[in-house]
C-alpha cells in the first residue's frame, strides 16, 4: 500500500470524528465503516491534515519523529483505503 505523504489530504466530510480517551473513533456515514485511531498523536495528525500542504507537514506539526513516520504513513494509508481521508484537490492558501 503506497501512501503519498507529499500530497494534501483532508477528512471526508461524511466522516464523524469522535475523540476518546485512547485516541479517536471515525465513522463514515456513507460507507458505514468504523476506524479506531489508537493514540492521541495519530488523531492530531488527522486533525491537522486539512491545514497543511502535505501529510508529511501535518505529521511534523503533530510531533511525529522521523523514525515513526513509516508507522504513521501506514496509518494514513489505512484511512485512505477506507475513504476516511481523501486527497485534497485545492491546496490551502
Amino acid at each position, binding site marked *: 500500500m503506497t501512501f503519498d505523504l507529499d500530497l494534501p489530504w483532508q477528512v471526508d466530510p461524511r466522516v*464523524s470524528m*469522535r*475523540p*476518546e*480517551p*485512547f*485516541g479517536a*473513533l471515525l*465513522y463514515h*456515514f*456513507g460507507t*458505514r465503516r*468504523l476506524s*479506531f485511531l*489508537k*493514540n492521541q498523536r495519530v488523531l492530531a495528525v488527522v486533525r491537522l491534515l486539512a491545514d497543511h500542504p502535505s501529510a508529511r507537514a501535518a505529521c511534523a506539526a503533530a510531533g511525529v519523529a522521523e*523514525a*515513526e513516520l513509516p508507522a504513521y504513513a501506514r496509518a494514513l494509508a489505512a484511512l485512505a483505503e477506507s475513504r476516511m481521508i481523501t486527497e485534497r484537490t485545492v491546496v490551502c492558501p
Partner: protein
Amino acid sequence: MPLAQRSQSPGRLADLFQLGLDAPICLTWELTYACNLSCVHCLSSSGRRDPAELTTEECKRVIDTLERMQVFYVNIGGGEPTVRPDFWELVDYATARHVGVKFSTNGVKITPSVASRLAASDYVDVQISLDGATAEVNDAVRGPGSYETAMRAMRNLSDAGFRGFKLSVVITRQNVGQLDAFKAIADRFGAQLRLTRLRPSGRGADVWHELHPTAEQQRSLYDWLVAHGEQVLTGDSFFHLSAYGSALPGLNLCGAGRVVCLIDPVGDVYACPFAIHENFLAGSVRDDGGFESVWKSSELFRSLRTADTGGACRSCGFYDSCRGGCMAAKFFTGLPLDGPDPECVRGYGEAALASAPVAAAPRPSADHSHRKVPVTIGRRRPPRRDCDENPLAGFAAAP
C-alpha cells in the same frame, strides 16, 4: 524490532477500552414492549406495552443527548418498534440530527410505500428478523404467519430498491442446517445476512436448553462463518467461538457497558439487551444527568470497564481468544460470571451446567409477555384473608 519502539505499541483495542469510552459506539434502544408477535425466545419478554413507556417528548430528549454525545448509530428495536404511533416521527428526528438509525422489525408495517420511503433515506437501515428459511421452521418459533410477513417485507424493500438491508437470524438447533438457504434468501432480496447467537435471556430462558445448538452444530456454524468471511455479519455475537481457531471479524469481546448498552422502553439503562435484569441495571434516562451521566459515571458500567482477570478461566490457554464468553449467557443459565460460558467450545461450560441447579437460574422481575390464559390460582400467592380476594368469599349462594 528495538525494545524502545515496541514499548510505544498502541496495543490491543480491547485493552484501550478499559479507560471507558465517552459514548457508546452503538446502542440498542427498545422503543416499546408492545409486539404483534410472541416469539418463544424473545430476549425482552415483549408483547404488552408498559404503561410507563417514555413519551414522545422524553424520546426526543434522549435523541438530543445521543446527538450531543455523537453516538454514530442506534439500533431501534422492541417489542415491535413500528407499532409505536410516533415511530416515524422519532426516526426522522434522529436522522435529522445525524444519529444513524437501524431498526429491527418483524416486517409487519413494511408496506411498499414505507419501503420506498426507507430506500430514499441514507441514514436509516432496516433489519428484518427471521428464524427459519422455511415457514415450518420459522413459525414454530415466531408464530403462524410470521414467515410470510417477513418475506413480504423483504420483497417490498427489494422492489423499492433498498440494497443491503439486514436479514437477521437467531441460530437454533432447528435452523442451523439452513445456513445456505438463509444466504440464498438474503441474496434473492439484495440483503445482507446476519447470524446471531441465541441467549437464555427473557423468554429465551425457557427454551434455551432445547433450542441452543449442540456442540457439533456450533462447530459447523463456526466453519461456515469462517468460510463466508465478512459477507455475513454476526454482531460479534459468536466471539466465544474464537477459541476454535482464528477469530471471526469483530471486536471479539463482551461489549456490555463498554461499547454498547441498552435503553429500554421505560428509560432504564442496562449493560446490554441480553441482560435485562436488575443486576445489570445501570440507571435511568429519567435520572438527573440523563443517559449521558449513566453512561459515563454509573457504578455498574465503571465496574464492567475494569480489566477482566479471567477468574476460573485464567488457566485456560484459550481465554485470550474467547475472553470467557457471554456474561448474559452465563448469568441466565445460573453459571458464575467468572467461569466458562455455557457453550464454551472446550466443553467446560457443559460440565459446569451439569452441576449447576437449573432452578437457581435468575429470572427478571418484569415480564411483558402477552397473557395466553388469565392469571389463575397456582400462579399467585394465596390471599391472606378471604376478603382480600373477594368480599363474598365464604358466603354460600342463597338456595
